[in-house]
């Protein structure tokens, strides 16, 4: 591919200006606002107005009050990401190497279910996992679940919902990575007497790492911040950080605390992304 020479001059600035300004005004500046809000005096309210008092104590307060949902979000997010990786890898591998001329069709089918609304899909899961639903009845029949056990309103339902809803974010990057692998390399390892398991861990897996890294990030980030699954499929004991932020903003009107939690969430995710990407050695992704 011939490297296109980049032109200098005014035109470049004119082209980037409108989009860049939009992002500055409605992404960068709001984030600054959020940080400022998180430092307002906690005694402020919608009616009395807020006062900036550099109240770093807000951060201490929210960590003390909400460390549980915070930890739970990370745990649910990580678990869902793990299940997505397992399911997504199988699917992406099958499409990349075993699907023959049905490749395009299968790829379309991978994204097709996710064209219905996120909320409608989650409501479907609510129905599927309901107490008298097919899934629960079957599991009770084979005694995996006891007669009084339920699935809905448990951590299991929340993680299952997260896994389902973010699966395509895992499958697509994995497929992109796997599809680039020359299948002859895998065959060569077979010729050299590697058994399929060894061939997978020595050849396929390392070559697919860029897809694994971007897939896990693309799944983990929205899963940690999500609150729809926890709201529809969970109960009060499965509240995630998103639920807390949402209700602090809309119900409790405690803007400083909500702001502080959002900032913490953003910093946590940025820190994890940087560490993870460094360790996995795929910095070109950023």
């Amino acid at each position, binding site marked *: 591919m011939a490297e296109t020479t980049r032109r200098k001059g005014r035109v470049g600035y004119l082209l980037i200006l409108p989009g860049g300004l939009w992002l500055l005004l409605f992404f960068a*500046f709001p984030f600054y606002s959020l940080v400022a809000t998180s430092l307002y005096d906690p005694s402020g309210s919608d009616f009395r107005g807020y006062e900036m008092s550099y109240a770093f104590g807000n951060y201490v307060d929210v960590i003390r009050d909400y460390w549980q949902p915070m930890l739970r979000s990370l745990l649910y997010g990580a678990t869902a990401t793990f299940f997505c990786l397992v399911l997504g890898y199988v699917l992406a591998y099958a499409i990349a190497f075993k699907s023959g001329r049905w490749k395009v069709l299968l790829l379309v089918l991978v994204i097709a279910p996710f064209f219905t609304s996120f909320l409608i899909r989650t409501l479907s899961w609510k129905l599927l996992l309901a107490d008298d639903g097919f899934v629960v009845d079957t599991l009770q029949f084979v005694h995996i679940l006891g007669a009084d056990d339920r699935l809905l309103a448990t951590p299991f339902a929340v993680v299952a919902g997260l896994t389902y809803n973010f699966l395509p974010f895992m499958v697509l990057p994995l497929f992109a990575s796997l599809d680039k692998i020359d299948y*002859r390399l895998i065959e060569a390892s077979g010729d050299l007497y590697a058994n399929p398991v060894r061939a997978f861990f020595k050849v396929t897996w390392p070559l697919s790492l860029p897809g694994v890294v971007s897939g896990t990030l693309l799944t983990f980030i929205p899963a940690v911040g999500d609150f729809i699954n926890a709201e529809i499929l969970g109960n009060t004991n499965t509240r995630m950080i998103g639920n807390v932020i949402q209700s602090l903003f809309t119900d409790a009107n405690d803007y400083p605390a909500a702001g502080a939690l959002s900032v913490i969430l953003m910093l946590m995710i940025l820190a994890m992304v940087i560490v993870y990407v460094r360790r996995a050695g795929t910095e070109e992704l950023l």
Partner: protein
Amino acid sequence: MTDLQDPQPGARARPVAQGGAPRPPRPTPTPTPARAPRGDLVGWLKDHLVLILGLLVLAYTFVPIAVVVLMSFNQPLSEQSKIYQFQGFTLDNWLNPCEDPSMCEALGRSIEIGLLATLVATVLGTLAAFAMVRHEFVGRSTSNLLIFLPMAAPEIVLGSSLLAMFVASGLAGQLGFWTILVAHIMFCLSFVVVTVRARLAGMDDNLEQAAMDLYATPAQTFWRITFPLVFPGILGAALLSFSLSFDDFIITNLNSGNTTTFPMYVYGVSRRTVPMQINVIGTVMIVVSIAIVVAGELNNRRRRVSL
């Protein structure tokens, strides 16, 4: 599946060599360790294990979709009924999709916001993508970061940032249509830039050079050569924008004031009695999007043949 008719279970790599279009044809001197042909079921299962597991995962992703389609034919739930379950077949929901007018109002608003946000985000994003790929300017890496970060930030953070800004600038009472639109344009923008940039970066400028050599003016070159070549990328970006905007709940919910979009309507009814019409909309959405994808693919094939 072709594999079902495959008479030689030993030749398991064959379908790949047929289907992997971009891969060069594999020279087939058969050094693969010859496996004893197994006619039995166990052998066949072993050879197709990954494909079968993959198809099972795919089937799993369609389970809730089946529920949506099924429930779109469900009889309405009684007001008291807290249980969301199938009660009996009816076509009523399809015949009267707007039985609850507030649902169709919310749907119309979502489509309106989706179209406007797509239009603005696609134009601004395409311009920015051209700048990033084709032009040199001070602040390139900052722009890059500014485009990347909104995609890496969880939605709840984007939403609460915007809300914090609107409130701080005294717009708390003005939340509604316009604040939703502004937010949607913001998060669609990055996805447009990335999509169009990928298309532009994969394109060399030989054809454009040739057009210029043949005395085309810069404007002619752009509209006759560059734009048609980038257009599929722009179209893809626009479709992505629309579906992101149409489906967004978290950011919208924080910045909507009293305005209701379709996802917000669904969220609202999920706590009360669910009208079955939402499943009609869900079914229509999936059918329309599959039709668009299939039409695009057919169009691609036709073009490839005619070239």
